[in-house]
C-alpha cells in the first residue's frame, strides 16, 4: 500500500496536499491562537523568510554568510524609519529632537512614503550585497574568508549605527511606532492583517525560491557549490551568479526585516549583530540545508523551541538551547529534513537512500578552508 502511495503521480498529489494543509493551517491560525501566540508565530514566519534566502546562498550555492543580520536590519530600519515618521506625524522623531537635530536629515525624507520605504527596504540590502559581492566574488574570496568578511561587515554596520545616534536612534534603535496607513498599529484588525500579509509574503518567497532552485539558474548555483572553478571552465562567470544569489538572499532578508518590525515594534543595532546572524544560520542548519522546506521548518521550530524553553526554564534555558545546537549539528547533519529522508526509506522498503544523496550538499556547504 505504501508503494502505491509513493508512485510518481501520487507523489505530486501528496506534495500538493501537504503544502495545501500547511497553508490552510497557517491561514486559519488567527482563529485558534491567542493574540500573543499569533504575534509570535508571525515573527517566526518573518524569520522563515530570512531562512529561505540563507538557504539559497548557503544550502544551494555553498556560501556561508554570517552577515545576514545586517541585511535583515537594513530592511527593518527602512520600515522602522517609515513608522517612526508616521508616528511623529510631521514633527521630528523624538530621538532626533533630543540629539540636537533640528531638521529631518535628507536621507530620512524618502521614507515618509510607505511605498518608497518598502522599495528601499528591499533595494538597499540587495544593493549592499551586490556591492560587497562585486568585489569579494570577483576576487574569489570564499569559504571561511568570505564568512569572516561578512562578520567584519556586521561589526562595521553595527558600530556605525550605534555611533550615529542622532540619525539612527543609537543602541535604543527605533521604537514607539503607532500607525500604519493612518490606522492604529495595535488594533486587532491590523494585527490579523499583518499576520496574513506575512503568510502571503512567505508563500510568495517560497514560490520564488522554488522557481529559482528549479530553474537553470538554480542548477548553476548548485554546480558552483560543487565546484566553483569547474563552472568557470564551462564558460560561466560564477561571480555573477554568486552576486545574484547573494543579492536575492539579501533582499529576502530585508523583506523579513520589514515584517519583523511591523510585528515586534522595535529594531535596534543588536538585531544586526553577530549573535542573531549566527542564529539565522542555525535555523537553516537545523531545518536542513539545501531544502527550502527545511529552512522554513528550521526557522519556526527553533524559534518556537527558544521561546518555550526560555519561558519554562528562564534561568537555565541556554543549556538546552546550546545542547540542541550541538546535538543537531553533530548527529543530524541533514537537519530535520535530512532526518525525514533517513527515516523515509524505512517505510518505503526500497533501496535505502544512500548517504550520498545528501552528502554533496553537506560536504560542499562545509567546504571552506
Amino acid at each position, binding site marked *: 500500500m505504501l508503494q502505491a502511495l509513493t508512485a510518481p503521480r501520487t507523489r505530486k498529489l501528496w506534495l500538493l496536499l501537504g503544502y495545501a494543509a500547511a497553508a490552510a493551517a497557517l491561514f486559519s491560525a488567527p482563529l485558534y491562537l491567542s493574540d500573543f501566540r499569533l504575534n509570535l508565530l508571525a515573527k517566526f514566519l518573518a524569520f522563515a523568510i530570512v531562512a529561505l534566502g540563507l538557504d539559497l546562498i548557503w544550502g544551494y550555492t555553498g556560501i556561508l554568510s554570517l552577515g545576514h543580520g545586517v541585511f535583515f536590519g537594513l530592511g527593518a530600519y527602512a520600515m522602522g524609519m517609515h513608522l517612526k515618521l508616521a508616528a511623529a506625524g510631521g514633527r521630528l522623531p523624538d530621538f532626533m529632537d533630543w540629539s540636537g537635530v533640528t531638521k529631518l536629515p535628507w536621507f530620512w525624507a524618502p521614507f515618509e512614503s510607505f511605498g518608497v520605504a518598502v522599495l528601499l527596504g528591499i533595494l538597499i540590502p540587495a544593493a549592499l550585497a551586490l556591492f560587497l559581492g562585486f568585489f569579494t566574488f570577483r576576487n574569489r574570496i570564499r569559504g571561511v574568508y568570505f564568512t569572516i568578511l561578512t562578520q567584519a561587515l556586521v561589526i562595521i554596520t553595527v558600530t556605525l549605527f550605534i555611533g550615529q545616534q542622532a540619525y539612527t536612534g543609537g543602541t535604543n534603535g527605533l521604537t514607539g511606532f503607532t500607525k500604519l496607513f493612518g490606522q492604529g498599529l495595535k488594533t486587532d484588525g491590523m494585527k490579523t492583517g499583518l499576520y496574513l500579509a506575512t503568510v502571503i509574503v512567505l508563500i510568495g518567497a517560497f514560490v520564488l525560491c522554488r522557481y529559482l532552485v528549479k530553474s537553470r539558474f538554480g542548477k548553476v548555483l548548485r554546480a558552483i557549490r560543487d565546484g566553483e572553478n569547474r563552472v568557470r571552465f564551462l564558460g560561466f562567470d560564477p561571480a555573477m551568479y554568486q552576486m545574484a544569489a547573494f543579492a536575492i538572499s539579501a533582499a529576502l532578508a530585508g523583506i523579513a526585516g520589514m515584517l519583523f518590525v511591523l510585528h515586534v515594534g522595535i529594531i535596534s543595532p543588536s538585531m544586526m549583530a553577530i549573535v542573531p546572524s549566527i542564529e539565522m544560520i542555525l535555523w537553516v542548519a537545523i531545518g536542513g540545508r539545501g531544502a527550502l522546506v527545511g529552512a522554513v521548518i528550521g526557522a519556526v521550530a527553533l524559534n518556537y523551541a527558544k521561546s518555550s524553553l526560555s519561558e519554562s526554564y528562564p534561568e537555565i534555558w*541556554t543549556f538546552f538551547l546550546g545542547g540542541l545546537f550541538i546535538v543537531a549539528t553533530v548527529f543530524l547533519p541533514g537537519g530535520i529534513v535530512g532526518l525525514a529522508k533517513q527515516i523515509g526509506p524505512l517505510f518505503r522498503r526500497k533501496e535505502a537512500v544512500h548517504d550520498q544523496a545528501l552528502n554533496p550538499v553537506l560536504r560542499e556547504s562545509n567546504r571552506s578552508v
Partner: protein
Amino acid sequence: MWLTQLFNGLSVSSILLLIALGLSITFGLMKIINMAHGEFIMIGSYAAYVTQNVFKSALPKSAFDAYFPVAIVVSFAVAFAIGYLLEATLIRFLYGRPLDSLLATWGVGLVLQQVARSIFGAPNVAVTSPSWLDGGMRIMDGVVFPYKRLFIIGLVLVCLLAMYLYIYRSGPGRRMRAVMQNREMAACLGISTRRVDGMTFAIGSGIAGIAGCALSLIGAIGPTIGTNYIVDAFMVVVLGGVGKLVGTVAGALGIGMFNTLFEWWSTASLGKVFVFVLIVAFLQWRTMGLFAVKTRSLD
C-alpha cells in the same frame, strides 16, 4: 606621546596575539571554526580567580603574590583538560566539516557560559593582581610602561616560542603537522591521529586558557567575556592567513597598530570601523590573508 602610542600599539597587538594564538591552532591548523574559543579564555580567567581564592584562604598572606605563576599553569591545565574532553566527545565528529564545527561550537559556547553562570554567579568577579605587577616602568616624564603590559608582551613571546618549538622542532609537533596536512598518509605511517587530534585541540584550548589568565590582569572576568574577544581573534587569524603562525603574528601586529593609530586620530568607535573596513579591503587584495598557503588543487 608617540612613544606611548607605539607602546600601546604593541601592547594591544600582544593581547590580540595572545587571544588568537590558541585559535591559530584549533582553527588555523585543525580547521575547526571554534566559536567556543572565547569561552576557553573565560575558563582561563575563572581558573585564575579560583587559584587566587585558594591562595587567599589556604595560604599565608606572604605567599599570595606567588599565586599568579601558579594560576597560569592552572589555567592552562584546566582549559587543556576541558579542551581534551571536548575533542574526545564532540570535535572529533566534526573534522572536515568546518562550517558544522562553527555551529556546534557555538552551542558549546552557550553551554559553557551558562555553566560559568551557574557556578560563579552572573556578576563579574575580581582578581587581585600580584603586587609585583603593580605600577610601571617610567621611561621618561609622563611615559609609563605598565608592568602588566610588559608582562603580557613577555608572556606572548614565551608562548610563541614554545609553540614554535613544539610545532616545528619536536617529535609530537612533527606528527601534529603531518596529521593536519595529510590525515590518511599520517595514519598509514603509524601515527595515532586520534591522539594527535586530541592533543592539538587541547593545546590550542590550553593557550586560550593562558590568555584568559593574563587578561584577568587588565579586563573583566565574567561568564560572557569570551564574546568580547572572539571576533577579534578570528580577524587576526584570517588576516594573517589560516594555518600560518607567522601570519597570526603579523595579523595581530597589523590590527593592533592600526587600531591604536586610528583610535588616537579619531574615536574608539570610528577607529574600530576603520580597522574593519581596512581588513575587508585588504582581504580583497590578498584573498587568503598575508601569508597564504598556495595550493594547486582545483577547489
